[in-house]
């Protein structure tokens, strides 16, 4: 546990010394606010709900999460610090989990920075706190899975731009694949599979204030699967 905390602390220190991380957080907060107030037009609507705010989260994460995970493993291999890290007496799962927790902490800070928006809007109407809580839980689960996917892509790469492009591409496909039925007429079984695979489809329920156990399970197993495969890739790279 102490080793895991040390790894997480190291990752956090590196993240918060990196300008792209601050740019990514700034982009997320300003893009979400711009969308919500100026495009979605919250103030012109007579609805006390943050549904519009959180509806933008999946597509924003497509750009923001890869910016946070691109350094992950790719930078370790590019700088050669992987030689320092991988020769320490740490197990692969500890290394993977430490890096994941470090990045997730940054994401949690970013999500927490949206809380003042909710608090500022509270006096304007009778907001459903249960729905807002579900929206935050969904955001954390969605971003948790996106971070695991981003780090999974990063472990294959040796430069940040490839890691960013790969992760953004993968997240974009997994976000939009559930909406294929609106542009393509595909057989129902295919659409069902695409909807199940989609990160966005499972997020819809949380945005509506529904805590769906199946959606929760989906995010948890996909995160665990990505972390597990990342640790396998890490071991496989020792054999390459």
């Amino acid at each position, binding site marked *: *546990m*102490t*080793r895991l*905390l*040390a*790894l997480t*602390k*190291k990752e956090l*220190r*590196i993240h918060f*010394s*990196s300008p792209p991380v601050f740019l990514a957080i700034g982009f997320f907060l300003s893009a979400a606010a711009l969308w919500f107030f100026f495009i979605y037009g919250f103030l012109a609507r007579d609805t006390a709900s943050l549904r519009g705010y959180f509806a933008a989260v999946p597509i924003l994460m497509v750009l923001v999460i890869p910016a946070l995970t691109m350094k992950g493993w790719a930078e370790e291999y590019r*700088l*050669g*610090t*992987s*030689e*320092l890290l*991988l*020769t*320490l*007496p*740490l*197990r692969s799962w500890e290394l993977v989990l430490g890096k994941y927790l470090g990045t997730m902490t940054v994401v949690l800070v970013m999500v927490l920075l949206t809380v003042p928006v909710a608090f500022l809007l509270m006096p304007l109407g009778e907001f459903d706190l249960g729905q807002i809580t579900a929206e935050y839980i969904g955001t954390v689960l969605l971003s948790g899975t996106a971070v695991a996917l981003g780090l999974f892509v990063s472990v294959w790469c040796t430069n940040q731009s490839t890691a960013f492009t790969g992760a953004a591409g993968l997240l974009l496909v997994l976000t939009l694949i559930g909406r294929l039925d609106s542009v393509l007429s595909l057989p129902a079984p295919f659409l069902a599979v695409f909807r199940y695979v989609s990160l966005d489809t499972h997020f819809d329920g949380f945005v509506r204030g529904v805590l769906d156990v199946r959606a929760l399970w989906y995010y948890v197993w996909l995160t665990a699967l990505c972390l597990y495969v990342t640790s396998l890739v890490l071991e496989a790279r*020792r*054999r390459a």
Partner: protein
Amino acid sequence: MIDVHALSKSYGKLKAVDQVSFSLGSQQVTGLLGPNGAGKTTLMRLLTGYLYPDSGTVRICGLDIGTHSTQARAQIGYVPENAPLYPELTPYELLEFVSVARGHSAGDKGSGRKLPGRHVFREQLELVIERVGISEVRQRVIGTLSRGFKQRVAVAAALIGTPKVLVLDEPTSALDPNQTHEMRELIRELGQEATVIVSSHVLSEIEAVCRDAVILHHGRVVGRGDIDTLRHDLASGMGELIRVEFDPPHNDDIVVALDSTPGIAGVVPEHSARALLVRLQPEAEGPQVLFDFASAQGLKLKRLEPTAGGLEEVFRVLTTEDRQP
């Protein structure tokens, strides 16, 4: 302390390390030598568990690095080539991280190496910082440090937890002469406490700090053992080795002409490039052949003295011929 048996590693069709075997006892400093591409770095990565071999075994303190990887790695301190470090951290933060990763933290019951308290933990870090001379930069961000200091921070990270095996890839490559001297002293000192493997392209460096050497060529061990013995074995069965200096100084044409002169087994320009090391053939009659050569070329012999030869000659002979130890 280190047992390497039939170790092989390939990158595609290239055999980087090919059937390498050797054993190193405790408390000795061994030099790992070889020309570029000989497989030194791959071998060091295999020894430290950064890479897994295609075949063969590495045992560190009796622990197989393939099957007991984490435990074996706990016995190793490693300074990779070019000393890669996290530029965002300070030396103190890095050492603190490495220390905890090695199981040294105040009151860590899970590590099995419980220390009496946080002050002892910090004291041990301070000792390492003091030992490698990075006190003045301990709180500066590593990205802003000179290469020399980065190198020393990397060495400090390798010393954390007093590992029984130290693997140092070019540990003095970025140091100035004074720092190089201090580092050599430190390596000699460490050789009293641990098994140290030092890789270097600077042969005088190896001669200065190592008693033993392993020489690699095309991924295979072509020479190993005590450096003096290597020199002696190489010289046995060969003619006399003579250091020669001509006036005017030699050029490439003279070296080629001398090398093809009957009675001469080989010619190697010395590191200083002023003199030549000339190996006579066993049947050659003393230095007469050199007097004849100088006379025929219109050169004066400025200096002519028998020599035992250095590691450089051993290295060049072993890595330019298809020899086996």
